[in-house]
C-alpha cells in the first residue's frame, strides 16, 4: 500500500508538470486552432533562463527561488510573443499545414540553436529552493515535489480566473469561438492572440523551472518528450478545455509512473502515444471536450 501511495505521489508531481505544459498547448489551440510544436522548446528555454538566473540569486532561499521563477515566466512570455509575431502572424490566413510545418521549424530552430549556444551536454540546474525531505506515515515527501503540485494548482486557478473573470479572458474566449465576430465586436484579435501566447509561454516557463527542480539535469533537447506527452494530456482532457488539460496531465503522469514502476517500464513512452491514439479514435473530443462538426 505504501508503495502504491508513493508511486501515486510521484505520478501526481510528474502529472502536475505535464498539466502546466498542456495548458499552454490547449490555450493556443483554443484561440488559433493549431498545435504550437514550439511550446515544448519554450519550456526548455525556461529551464535555461532559470539556470542562468539561478546564479544571480543566493542558493536555497525562498525569495531567490520565486525571483527565478518570475524571471523565467516573464522571459518565456516574451519569447512566445516574439515567435507568434515573427513566425505565425504572417501565416494567419494560410492553410493549417503550412503553419504546422512552420511550428515544427521553430521548434527545431530553438532546439538546435540551444545546442549551439549551450552545448548538447546536460547541465546541472542549481537548487534554487530550499530542499528538504520529510516522512509522513511511510511516505517520503520532498519539498520540491510538494512545491510542484502546489504551484501548478495555483497557476491553474489563476488561469481560470483570468479566462473567466477578466475582460481579456472574455476576449480570449470570444476569439476562440469566432474570430471574425469577435473582431466585429471590437476585439483586437492581434492583441488577444499575443496575450494568449504570452500567457501560455509563461506557464511553459514555470513548467520548465519546476521540472528542472525535480530533475536537475537540463539539456537543449529536454523538451521533446515532455512536450509530446503534455500534448497527449491536452488532447486527453479535451483540447481547448483548460480544466481538461490539467486533468489530462495528472492522469497521464500517474499512469506513466505506474507503468514505469512495473515490469513493463520500457514501454512507458509508448503508453502516452497509445492513449493518444485510442482517445483520438474513440473519443476525439477528449474527456471534457465537446465535438465540433465541420461545416462545409
Amino acid at each position: 500500500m505504501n508503495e502504491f501511495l508513493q508511486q501515486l505521489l510521484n505520478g501526481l508531481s510528474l502529472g502536475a508538470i505535464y498539466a502546466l505544459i498542456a495548458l499552454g498547448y490547449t490555450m493556443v489551440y483554443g484561440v488559433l486552432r493549431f498545435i504550437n510544436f514550439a511550446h515544448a522548446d519554450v519550456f526548455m528555454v525556461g529551464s535555461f533562463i532559470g539556470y542562468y538566473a539561478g546564479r544571480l540569486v543566493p542558493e536555497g532561499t525562498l525569495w531567490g527561488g520565486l525571483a527565478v521563477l518570475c524571471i523565467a515566466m516573464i522571459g518565456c512570455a516574451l519569447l512566445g510573443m516574439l515567435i507568434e509575431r515573427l513566425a505565425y502572424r504572417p501565416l494567419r490566413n494560410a492553410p493549417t499545414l503550412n503553419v504546422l510545418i512552420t511550428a515544427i521549424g521553430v521548434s527545431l530552430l530553438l532546439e538546435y540553436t540551444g545546442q549551439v549556444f549551450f552545448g548538447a551536454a546536460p547541465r546541472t540546474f542549481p537548487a534554487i529552493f530550499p530542499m528538504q525531505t520529510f516522512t509522513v506515515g511511510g511516505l517520503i515527501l520532498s519539498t520540491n515535489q510538494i512545491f510542484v503540485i502546489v504551484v501548478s494548482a495555483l497557476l491553474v486557478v489563476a488561469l481560470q480566473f483570468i479566462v473567466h473573470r477578466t475582460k481579456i479572458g472574455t476576449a480570449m474566449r470570444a476569439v476562440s469561438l469566432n474570430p471574425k465576430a469577435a473582431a466585429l465586436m471590437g476585439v483586437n484579435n492581434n492583441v488577444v492572440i499575443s496575450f494568449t501566447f504570452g500567457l501560455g509561454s509563461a506557464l511553459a516557463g514555470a513548467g520548465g523551472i519546476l521540472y528542472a527542480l525535480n530533475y536537475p539535469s537540463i539539456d537543449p533537447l529536454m523538451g521533446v518528450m515532455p512536450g509530446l506527452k503534455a500534448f497527449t494530456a491536452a488532447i486527453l482532457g479535451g483540447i481547448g478545455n483548460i480544466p481538461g488539460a490539467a486533468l489530462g496531465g495528472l492522469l497521464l503522469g500517474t499512469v506513466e509512473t505506474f507503468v514505469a514502476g512495473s515490469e513493463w517500464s520500457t514501454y512507458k513512452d509508448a503508453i502516452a502515444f497509445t492513449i493518444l491514439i485510442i482517445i483520438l479514435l474513440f473519443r476525439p473530443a477528449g474527456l471534457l471536450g465537446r465535438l465540433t462538426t465541420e461545416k462545409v
Partner: protein
Amino acid sequence: MASPTTPKRNVIPRPHLSLVAALILAFVFSSLSGTIDPYFLDVLTSAGIAVILAISLNLVMGFAGQFSLGHAGFMSVGAYLSAGISIYLGPHILASGSSAFVQGAFFFGALVLGGLAAAFAGLLVGVPSLRLKGDYLALVTLGFGEIIRVIFQNLEPLGGALGLNGIPPYTTIFWVIAWAAITIFVIHCLIHSTYGRGFLATHDDEIAAEAIGLNTTRYKITAFVIGAFFAGIAGGLYGHFKLTIMPTGFDFTKSIEIVVMVILGGMGNTVGVILAAILLTILPEVLRPIAEYRMVIYSFLLIVLMISRPQGLFNFSFSRLLKPRRSQN
C-alpha cells in the same frame, strides 16, 4: 488564390523510356563502381535511399494530402524484417559460394518482403487515421512511429535497444538506383492515371470528392500502403548499407528529415522532391565541418520557406523547360 500546396502536374516525359534509361544508368554506375571514390559512392547511395523515402512520402503528403510524421516507422519495419531475413534465413538458403544472381534474387526477395511488412503496417496506421485531419493526423502518425520504435526496442531477437548488427552488405549502387527508378516510375504512373486523379481530388477537397462518389477512404488507405511499401524498401536498402540498425535511428527526427525533403521540393512536385532529397543528403556531408549549425540552418530554412515560398524551392514547371506549353494551375 490557389492553395500553395496544389500539386503542379509535372509530367516526366515518356515514363517508360525514362525507367529503362535509369536502369541502364544503374548498370553503368555499378560497373564503374570500382573506379569511383568509395566515399562519393557512399554519399550517392545515401542520396538514392533518400530519394525513395521522399518520393514515397510525397505520395502520402503531396498527392493524397495526408500529413504523416511517422514515415520513419515504416522504414524501420522494412529495415528490420529484411535484415532479419538476411541474417536468420540467409545462411540456410544461400550456400556459400552462390552465384551473384542467386544472391541478388535473395536480396530482392528480402527487400520485397520487408516492403510488404511495411505496407501492412501502413494499413494498420491508415485505417484508424481515416477520420482525422491536419494536426490530429500528424500527431497520430507521430504516435504510431514512436510506438513502432518502442516495440523494436523491446524485441530481443532483432537486437532490441542495442540494435541489429552483422547485416550482410548487399546494397550496391545498382540496387539503389534501380529501386529509386522503380519507385518514381510506379508512383508517377499511379498519379497520372485515371485512378490517380482520385488522389488529387481527395487532396483538394475531400468533402466535394465524397459528394461526387469517390471513395476517399480507399484512396487515403492506398496512399498510406503504397507509401509505406516503398519506405520499407528504402529501409531494407538502408539496413544492408549501414550494416547496423538501431531503433533510435528511425525516430521522430528521421521522419522530420524526410518531411523537410518533401516540403523543400514542393509537395506533389516529383522532380522537385527528387532534387531536394539529393540536396539534403549531400549538404550535411559538405557541411560536415560546421555540422553543429546544419540543423539550425535547416530549421531556419523551413520557417523562411513556409512564410515566403510555401510551394517549395524547386517548384518549376518541368515541361516548360522542354517545350512551350501553357502551365496548368
